[in-house]
């Protein structure tokens, strides 16, 4: 994998090749990656891999004509070929009146400590050790465990004929595991993620999954309906993603978004959520594996999108910002739903009758206008009665919106890195959550 200097040299070479075409502007980007993974299931390791990847993408602009070509071969002949292909495609492509010129030199925020050397070089043996710790615990507890451990060392670099020069290197690691009881009636899950493998402990995660699996065995029936729910961070993150992906300003202006206002305009400035809801993005949060620039090289800044319940802004690309006389935002990374002061136990204590949810599964859009999403609960669902978790219950299909999840939220724990990574969220309590039908799956 190429380091910062090598990446910059390679991109400079490609920009120089592109500059030979009269009138051509170019943006070139390079991604590099070394990823390792180990899977385990039925209490043994099932597969493991170390894989190298690289990808060079060249976008050529000839006036308002533009096209992109990419290759993962970085020898001189391949570089010349990929540029020639992008030039040829751009010439053949119809004009795009929305084409924007390449970015020039930018100033980027620092993401301190984004690359952890120990995580970068982590190999099959420590991964096998993590799997082994989980398997050992599962065997002792007479449950069956399956899981996945992955670590990655990645780079992203961009350059342009206008002087753009960006480079970011970061690492990531994550582990998830699912423990099932031998009778097939109990299943528990846990996960951890960070840019540093040392930030989570495989055995501790396995213990949570095993405990939850055992406690969730032999669930009793709970009817579908609208319930008060306590959602653990993995569930919150899964549903919240549909909201964070809906901030596109253009779609709102075009009248085809939750953030569109009937009769025209957007809902920016409206108070749609309680005072406790603040949603931000912070590209400098190393644990979220964010980069200080987006895919076009646009510099990202910490931004508040919902402030104490009020919608503060939408996501503008450069073209739409120019057209609407707004500032472009870039494509935000590192989403954070600010937490509160409650503990998980306090959230549960405040529930007369409700449901505790570990995580969701198979979330899909039903209606983009209301951000109505369907999905299922999974791997640990419990009834809460009079402030206490009383018994495991069946899984549910839900039909609900993250807008309502936040709108009816009345309690938040501190935010943590989501077990799936890339987002910081709290556990939260919300009401009238539509658990629409029973799922017999365990």
């Amino acid at each position: 994998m190429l380091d910062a200097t090598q990446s910059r040299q390679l991109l400079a070479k490609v920009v120089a090749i592109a500059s030979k075409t009269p009138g051509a502007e170019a943006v070139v980007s390079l991604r590099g990656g070394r990823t390792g993974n180990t899977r385990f299931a039925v209490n043994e390791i099932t597969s493991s891999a170390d894989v190298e990847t690289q990808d060079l993408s060249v976008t050529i602009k000839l006036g308002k004509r533009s096209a992109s070509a990419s290759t993962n071969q970085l020898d001189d002949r391949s570089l010349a070929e990929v540029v020639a292909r992008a030039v040829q495609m751009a010439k053949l492509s119809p004009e795009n009146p929305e084409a924007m010129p390449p970015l020039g030199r930018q100033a980027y925020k620092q993401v301190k400590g984004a690359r952890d050397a120990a995580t970068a070089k982590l190999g099959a043996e420590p991964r096998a050790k993590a799997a082994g710790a989980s398997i050992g615990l599962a065997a002792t507890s007479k449950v069956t465990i399956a899981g996945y451990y992955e670590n990655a060392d990645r780079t992203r670099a961009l350059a342009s004929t206008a002087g753009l020069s960006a480079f970011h290197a970061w690492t990531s690691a994550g582990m998830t595991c699912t423990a099932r009881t031998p009778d097939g009636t109990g299943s528990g899950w846990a996960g951890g993620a960070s840019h540093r493998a040392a930030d989570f402990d495989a055995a501790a995660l396995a213990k949570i999954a095993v405990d939850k699996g055992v406690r969730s065995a032999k669930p009793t029936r709970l009817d579908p309906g609208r319930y008060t729910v306590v959602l653990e961070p993995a569930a919150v993150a899964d549903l919240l993603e549909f909201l964070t992906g809906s901030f596109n300003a253009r779609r709102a202006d075009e009248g085809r978004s939750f953030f569109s206002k009937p009769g025209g305009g957007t809902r920016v400035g409206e108070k749609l959520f309680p005072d406790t809801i603040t949603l931000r993005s912070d590209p400098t949060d190393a644990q979220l594996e964010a980069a200080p620039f987006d895919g076009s090289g646009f510099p990202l800044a910490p931004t508040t999108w919902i402030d104490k319940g009020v919608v503060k802004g939408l996501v503008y690309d450069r073209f739409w910002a120019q057209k609407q006389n707004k500032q472009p935002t870039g494509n935000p990374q590192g989403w954070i739903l600010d937490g509160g002061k409650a503990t998980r136990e306090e959230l549960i204590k405040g529930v007369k009758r409700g449901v505790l949810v570990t995580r969701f599964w198979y979330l899909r859009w039903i209606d983009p206008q209301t951000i109505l999403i369907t999905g299922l609960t999974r791997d640990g669902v419990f009834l809460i009665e009079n402030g206490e978790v009383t018994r495991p219950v069946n899984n549910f299909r839900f039909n609900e919106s993250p807008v309502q999840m936040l709108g009816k939220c009345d309690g938040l724990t501190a935010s943590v890195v989501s077990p799936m990574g890339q987002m910081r969220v709290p556990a939260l309590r919300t009401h009238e959550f539509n658990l629409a039908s029973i799922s017999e799956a365990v």
Partner: protein
Amino acid sequence: MISRRSFLAGSLAAAASVRLVDARGLMTDPVLDDLIQRTLATAKKAGATYADVRIVRMRNERVFTREDRIDGVSYSDQYGVGVRVIAGGAWGFAATPSVTIAQAERIAKAAVAIAKANAPLLKRPVALAPEPAHVDVWQTPIAKDPFKIPLEAKAELLLAINQEAMKVPGVKFVNSWYTGNAEWKLLATSDGAYIEQEIVRLEPGFSVTAVDDKRGEFESVDDDTPPRQAGWEYVENAALRSSARRVAELAVEKLKSPSVTPGKRDLILDPTNLWLTIHESIGHPTELDRALGYEANFAGTSFATPDKLGKLRIGAPHLTFYADKTTPGALATCGYDDDGVKTQRWNLVDKGIFVGYQTTREQAGWINEKASRGTCYADSYGSFPFQRMPNISLAPGPQERSIDDIIAATDDGVVVHGRGSWSIDHQRLNFQFSGQTYWEVKGGKKVRMVRDVAYQANTIDFWTSCDLIGGPKSWWLGGSMSDGKGEPGQSNAVGHGCPPARFRKQNILDTNRRRKA
């Protein structure tokens, strides 16, 4: 299908690549033969009891447009080599984009080292079901190579679609797209298999959005042209441009339509919707690794466990679901899987009874089968090959019956067309699907278009309630360019064919939340 087995029968793997070049010339670089032989030898020397080398090139071309302009034009070319080994009874895998002898030998050693690191935690060593060492070439039969069709022709077609759709009053947005993929791969195994294949897949399509600014409402309808394994002639012959106006009119009508009346009603599914229901409720539960717990941490497990094989009634007696990687044009069709197993057709559900699984060479022995069904696949040079879904289809009924015949026989129901929202639980029981367009049926007639429809059911109840299916002429081949499975996630293209069908007294939901928004 192009097969040259007759020319190649009896050849030895060592000399095979030369023969392949002579036979057809698909393989552009005979130097690869040397790389393959040395890599397999290196893996063996390092301690592998089995090794395979896959050299893969994936090409992808995309064109996106909206209304009267181009949104994006891109081409990608990814090439590399992956080495999979068994050492100490465990799998190991490593891959690199540097396709040189030195790098391939390096990753062969790395793959063996990974396998050895994992071997101590293994309870039972990996054992591969026997398979003849095939030496062959296979490619998608195409008349016009889509990668040689000029970009202008693709852009022109898409912009013409948009222009037609935008003529309809009330239509505000149109997005159209074209994707072409070419997957070339050379697989060589230490068992002597030597197989070269090229698979070409295309997906043209468009989506029309109507907006009512005053009410602040919008609705979209997607065209239902299915992706196919085909040449450019498929796009030329598809009725994309001629259907643009009709799809646009549907979007406008959908926006004006009332919400469905929910409740227990008969459900009539057009094949453009039913294929995805088959994929989720029959396709995934019959993956053997899933049924045995190997996917428990991500995709989940299955209601169709091996103890139920040959016993469980999944659906009505007139329903037979078959798997294959041989249906012409279907997205998963090829000559050999990534274990080097010759592709075939077999039943998963026979007359309503669960009878079969999707397997690989590793898995066949897990249920005491003697040979693999040939469903091993990896989505790039850098991906570990494992069990992936083949084409899975519902056989048509013996007598001719169209969707109109089914509607005429229905007193109170809802007809669903197109691929909408889809979600199913992790044992493949509770599912909920929507579509693109919906009509209410009363007294044997489509009476009005409705919207905000979803149907929610349990897999076995659903298929058991099926009382009518269409005949041979109503059978339609759909599919998806991407189906996810595994950790790290891999994507697989799958084809699914089916006739229309009716399901009695299903749970129809009204998903309208606008009044509360």
